[in-house]
């Protein structure tokens, strides 16, 4: 308790001059006000460059390639996003003020989006995450290849930890969810789990190779949900389809007007949709909260040293708390996604009903 008090005091002492400096800085150029919304959304949304850090003089970013296709503009074109910096135009393309995406002006003078498959921040980030995951799994796999007799020792260190998590996910989530045929789906579900938790955790680290909002991007969660959708509906057995198209309910509910089949059919779509939205909303909200708390420091800078200093302390305390919470959420969301995916897969492979009628 005493130590905590000292830490707080130290924070306060350190932060007051910082706040004062901020305050004086903001007094000198009043026009550079902190646009909280812009800060937050520029982080949450995808972007064509990856901002690393800024000094007083300039911003340092990685400019990622823009790859667009448009018939009107003469097919494919690929160039560095540096050429579009600060609203500049290149090859007829520029970054729209309103949407933040690459657009061109068509014949009628309207902004039109080309087919855009730029290697954006999220794309790069997901590549890094995927490769990191691949490296981790293959490194662990190498250990097993080296020690492939079953009488060899149990792995220790990182491989042991990884094995622990893998068996935990396998035994606690996948096995009860999928049921007897779980071996077939286990690798896929494990991949999903580890990709999500990796992306979630890396999203919490604010410096370069990590820190992008990957799982808080709806395209990513949509892809993952689609994978589960395919796993459920492509590998679903006859009984599963029978339960959707001709469920075991009184005939009037399905014969003249296919009420139940319709509801069941919507179930097919809502399940992956819920998966998609849950992960996206949770991760995005976490990023928004942490960024907002960070912004509190800079928003209160013009209000004087006392308010700014105290608000800084409060904000940092909350940020520490929220980051802890986000660590938990990172795990929970990966857990929930995998668990629901396994349950949906398990439901898609029901056993033949034994006639229950007496």
């Amino acid at each position, binding site marked *: 308790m005493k130590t905590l008090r000292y830490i707080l005091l130290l924070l306060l002492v350190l932060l007051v001059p910082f706040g004062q400096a901020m305050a004086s800085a903001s007094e000198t150029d009043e026009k550079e006000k902190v646009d909280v919304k812009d800060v937050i959304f520029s982080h949450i949304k995808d972007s064509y460059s990856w901002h690393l850090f800024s000094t007083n003089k300039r911003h340092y970013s990685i400019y990622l390639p823009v790859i667009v296709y448009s018939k009107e503009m003469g097919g494919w074109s690929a160039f560095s996003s540096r050429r579009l910096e600060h609203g500049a135009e290149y090859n007829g393309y520029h970054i729209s003020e309103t949407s933040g995406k690459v657009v061109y002006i068509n014949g009628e003078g309207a902004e039109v989006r080309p087919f855009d*498959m730029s290697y954006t921040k999220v*794309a790069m980030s997901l590549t890094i995450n995927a*490769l990191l*995951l691949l490296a981790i799994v293959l490194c662990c796999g190498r250990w097993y290849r080296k020690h492939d007799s079953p009488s060899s020792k149990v792995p220790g260190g990182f491989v042991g930890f990884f094995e622990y998590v893998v068996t935990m996910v396998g035994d606690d989530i996948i096995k009860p969810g999928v049921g007897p045929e779980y071996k077939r789906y286990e690798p896929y579900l494990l991949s999903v789990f580890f990709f999500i938790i990796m992306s979630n955790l890396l999203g919490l680290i604010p410096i370069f190779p990590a820190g992008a909002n990957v799982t808080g991007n709806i395209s990513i969660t949509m*892809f993952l949900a689609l994978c589960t959708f395919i796993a459920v509906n492509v590998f679903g057995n006859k009984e599963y389809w029978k339960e959707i198209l001709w469920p075991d309910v009184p005939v009037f509910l399905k014969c003249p007007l296919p009420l139940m089949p319709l509801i069941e059919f919507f179930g097919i779509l809502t399940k992956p949709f819920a998966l998609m939205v849950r992960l996206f909303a949770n991760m995005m909200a976490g990023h928004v909260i942490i960024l907002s708390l960070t912004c509190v420091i800079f928003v209160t800078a013009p209000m004087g040293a006392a308010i700014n200093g105290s608000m800084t302390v409060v904000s940092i305390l909350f940020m520490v708390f929220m980051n802890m919470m986000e660590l938990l959420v990172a795990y929970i969301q990966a857990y929930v996604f995998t668990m629901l995916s396994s349950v949906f897969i398990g439901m898609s492979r029901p056993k033949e009903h034994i006639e229950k009628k007496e």
Partner: protein
Amino acid sequence: MDLLLPEVGTLIWMLIAVGIVFFILIKWGFPMITKSVDQRKEYIDASIEKAEQANSRLEGIRQECSDLLDQAKKERADILQDAARLRQEILQSAQQESKEQGEKIIAQAKAQIEIEREEAIRSIRAEIATLSVAVAQKLVEKELDDSKEQKDLTNKLIDQIVK
């Protein structure tokens, strides 16, 4: 609002990067780990079963051992009992025999003594007779007047000597 709209470009990159990575992971990555873990699990289960079997066998051997020991103990007790009985018997018979022997010896000795006594008496009697004859001779030599008195004296003398 565009936050909620999926981006085709991102989806394509996701499909490429994550698709390839997932393919590798599903094909080689995770099965290797789970297979190893399963193999180890089976190995451990088999080992436990083996250990249990060995244990039960050991238990059987131990039971056998204790049975054997019990039997040996019983046999030893029997043998000891037999030995004690035998000793008792031998002792008894020896005693009996020695007693009989002793009795026999005593009887023999008694008979011998009797015979010898009789012999002695006889010889004494003869001696006495001789003696008395001698005494009588002496007396006769001295005077043979009162024969009655003499006879009484003689008898008295004999009795005295014999006694």
